[in-house]
């Protein structure tokens, strides 16, 4: 196996591993803040949870970008073609 393939596989794993770190921490903080807000103001729970879901999907997108990069490296790598 030549080193390009090896490097691609390692980089795909690293992309997903480190790409999942940041969004995980960020989502934890976002959910904690939303829980805090709901506990303070239960009547605003609908608005808060709707905004929370939109925000979570936004944060998750960074992890998804890393996943797409990893899949590009594994399945559509221009260097290996």
């Amino acid at each position: 196996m030549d080193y390009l393939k090896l490097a691609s596989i390692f980089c795909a794993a690293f992309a997903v591993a480190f790409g999942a770190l940041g969004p995980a921490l960020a989502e934890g903080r976002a959910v904690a803040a939303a829980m805090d807000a709901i506990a303070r103001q239960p009547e605003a729970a609908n608005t808060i949870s709707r905004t929370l879901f939109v925000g979570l999907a936004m944060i998750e997108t960074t992890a998804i970008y890393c996943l797409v990069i990893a899949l590009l490296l594994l399945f559509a790598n221009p260097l290996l073609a």
Partner: protein
Amino acid sequence: MNSPLSSTVLFTIGPVPINQAVLTTWAIMAVLVLGAALLSRRLTLVPGKRQAALELIVATLDTQIVETTGAKPAPYRGFIGTLFLFILVANWSSLIPGVEPPTAQLETDAALAVLVFLSVIWFGVRSGGLIGYLKSFAAPNPVMIPLNMLESLTRVFSMFVRLFGNVMSGVFVIGIVASLAGLLVPIPLMALDLLTGLVQAYIFAVLAMVFITSAVEDGKPAPAEAKTTPSPPKKDI
């Protein structure tokens, strides 16, 4: 394991190759159009069960549009509602055995994102005129023109990668787990996929709505008393 980025061609019509995602999209379109046509026949002032259920769907869509934009829902209901219902049905079509959701293919999501991009231009031009819409790129000052143009492209691109990545990763993970562990193990993941599909359809529609509203509001000529009245909070995404 097949690459999630490629698609298998089923047959060709003339020079146009037709793959499974296109066929599924046609089926979903037929179901949605026929369902809407059949269900909305013989509407009456006092609704029956069928009409009450339909009105519930439309009223829910309207409430969401009003809460997101603060504007009247009528001009946006058709586009946003169709976008939401189509993506929802497409995401959930993975529940039918043998069907892969068309939103798990790059092409379908790219087409949906291009639709949103064009509709932002359309609604922006319609509310503020061509000049007003073009002026909105120079806000707050002309230095921002390249950045604003870049932003209008990248936000659409991120919408498309988000939808593709979420739906595709769901399908991919279920495929891997099913090939490793057998028949009943992926069921919790499929339940999670239902939630993801709903949330992603909602996000896509809400983001389209937010982009359209920001284009509409930026293109409008500023009213004289705009400084005294508090404007509705603009979601800057």
